[in-house]
């Protein structure tokens, strides 16, 4: 065998390399900058610079893209406008998430435990807290996750898909376990998330093996060609395709692969929940779009069963269970399950429009999610002695928030209305374009269910708005809740609120940008 140095088009991978390179550099920072406070500052700066630089590079690439895009190294990675659009979206979530990671309470507490390895409630924990320990590794871990997600949106090979899935999942498993308060819940969430995540990725891998067996390749293009030509292996292809899609549906959080969502959302530190909720769903949707449109497009009729069943189940279950939730983070988790269903609606019939509608949908959903959790991170329980505790996530604790902090409550109401798809918010346009895509392929019964589900979903969003604005603080509870002021979190609230309104009123420019993204370089869809 002779070895020929592979030709790799590095330039299209620049944003990815910036992020992953910065993550590796940040690990070095961990070893060489000893003082926690300085290390934190360096990490934050490094993360923000890397993410913004990567976003800038991606935008420049968008502007100067040669033709439809570039295929890097024998079908492994495809960088086209679709990938760039998603990457920019994930980078935006990354920047906002990093700001949330860095936000602190007035008392100088961040959301993460001072030391992940000590038992909750032990003297060591107290000692570590007193000594000002900080797990600044969360920043590089977040960078790794962002890098993995960016890769996830661009890979065009099932094995690389599996690797990218793990690259972004592993940091998330760790991050979920690092909450400062309620660490038992945090551990529990991480354990569940990890075990089920590993379970689902094994399913995905087995599906990939089947597809490899049926078509002799793991490249999307090859699979697509294989589906068209291969004879006698149909069951293998179908079973493999279903298992791969199930692996991705797990990450999207669609029923019945959703069970991890509420537990991980509730257990994780709120900034991680925000980042995870927004970015994971976006990355998984991007990967699902790509694998469906580039590899499984020929299976449209067979897979439509799967899409319909899962979409309907997700919308109904997410909505119905969210109605009876009493914990805010859990309620939003179930709402995310319902949103997974709405996302899948756009897949019905594999319309071309989904390629441009879903990036917008996920942008609107992700921004509102980020903003909502940023608001949650600002509403804290207060002990009798005036010490500020963890987030007040019981719904009842939000009663009368509109009087205490009209701006925070107003922003929250805006995000909730956006989730509900009320006009003049980004969520309305998002739902509109997503459902319009499905209607264009004649999937109107599904859209009808989606419309009914989103109307029903409005109930529990509105219930919180009523609680915030139309209910008084319960007697004797006036001092039980404290409004925190963390500049970084406030910035996130402000930016996301502004974007949600902006995208709701003048979505034009962004929509047309995504319209350009709606062409896949290797699309079997054409």
């Amino acid at each position, binding site marked *: 065998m002779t070895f020929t140095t592979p030709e790799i088009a590095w330039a299209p991978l620049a944003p990815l390399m910036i992020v992953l390179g910065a993550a590796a550099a940040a690990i070095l920072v961990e070893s060489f900058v000893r003082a926690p406070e300085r290390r934190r500052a360096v990490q934050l700066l490094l993360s923000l610079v890397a993410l913004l630089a990567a976003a800038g590079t991606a935008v420049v690439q968008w502007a100067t893209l040669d033709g439809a895009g570039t295929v890097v190294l024998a079908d492994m990675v495809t960088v086209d406008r679709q990938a760039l659009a998603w990457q920019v979206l994930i980078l935006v979530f990354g920047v906002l998430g990093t700001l949330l990671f860095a936000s602190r309470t007035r008392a100088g507490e961040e959301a993460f435990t001072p030391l*992940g*390895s*000590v*038992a*909750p409630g032990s003297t060591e924990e107290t000692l570590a807290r007193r000594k000002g320990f900080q797990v600044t590794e969360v920043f590089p871990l977040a960078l790794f996750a962002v890098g993995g997600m960016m890769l996830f949106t661009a890979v065009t090979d099932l*094995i690389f898909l*599996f*690797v990218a899935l*793990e690259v972004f999942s*592993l940091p998330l*498993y*760790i991050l979920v*376990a690092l909450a400062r308060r309620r*660490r*038992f*819940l945090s*551990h*529990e*969430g*991480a*354990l*569940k998330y*990890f*075990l089920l995540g*590993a*379970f689902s990725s*094994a*399913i995905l*891998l*087995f599906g*990939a*093996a*089947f597809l*490899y*067996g049926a078509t*002799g*390749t*793991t490249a999307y293009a090859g699979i697509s060609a294989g589906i068209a030509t291969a004879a006698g292996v149909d069951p293998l292809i179908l079973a493999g395709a279903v298992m791969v899609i199930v692996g991705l549906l797990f990450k999207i959080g669609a029923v019945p692969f959703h069970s991890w969502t*509420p*537990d991980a959302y*509730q*257990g994780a530190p709120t900034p991680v929940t925000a980042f995870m909720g927004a970015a994971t769903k976006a990355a998984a949707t991007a990967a699902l779009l790509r694998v469906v449109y580039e590899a499984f497009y020929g299976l449209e009729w067979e897979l439509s069963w799967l899409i319909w069943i899962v979409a309907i189940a997700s919308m109904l279950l997410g909505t119905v269970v969210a109605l009876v*939730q009493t914990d805010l983070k*859990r309620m939003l988790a179930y709402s995310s399950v319902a949103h997974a269903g709405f996302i899948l609606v756009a897949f019905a019939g594999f319309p071309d429009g989904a390629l441009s509608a879903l990036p917008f949908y996920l942008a609107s959903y992700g921004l509102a999610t980020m903003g909502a959790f940023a608001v949650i991170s600002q509403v804290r329980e207060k002990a009798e002695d005036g010490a500020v505790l963890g987030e007040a996530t019981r719904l009842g604790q939000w009663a009368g928030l509109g009087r205490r902090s009209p701006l925070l409550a107003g922003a929250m109401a805006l995000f909730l209305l956006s989730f509900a798809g009320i006009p003049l918010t980004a969520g309305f346009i998002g739902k509109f374009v997503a459902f319009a895509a499905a209607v264009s392929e004649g999937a109107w019964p599904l859209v009808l269910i989606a419309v009914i589900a989103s109307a029903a979903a409005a109930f529990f969003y509105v219930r919180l708005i009523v609680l915030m604005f139309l209910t008084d603080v319960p007697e004797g509870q006036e001092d039980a809740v404290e409004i925190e002021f963390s500049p970084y979190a406030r910035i996130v609230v402000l930016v996301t609120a502004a974007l949600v309104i902006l995208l709701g009123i003048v979505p034009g420019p962004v929509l047309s940008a995504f319209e350009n993204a709606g062409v896949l370089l290797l699309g079997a869809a054409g």
Partner: protein
Amino acid sequence: MDPINFVILASILFAIGAAAVLLRRNAIIAFMGVELMLNAANLALVAFSRMHGEIDGQIMAFFVLVVAAAEVVVGLAIIIAVFRARQTISLDEPAELKG
């Protein structure tokens, strides 16, 4: 004998691994079940690789090996963290997040 039989073997191992996740309370054993599922996928990949007369499948199995090793490290770290907090590795015990 047709190498496809190894794929059948892989399917059986996959199902056993999945059953372990469903049935075992011990987190480490459940996790070993996941490892078995990954290895089953590897066996299928290698068998198909042999059938297609190319070694791409083996390379993929190689990658899976590395990924699985990394996953084991993180998984066991989480299990240890849970053990330190609760003094148990039973999966049934941490069940406060529900509903």
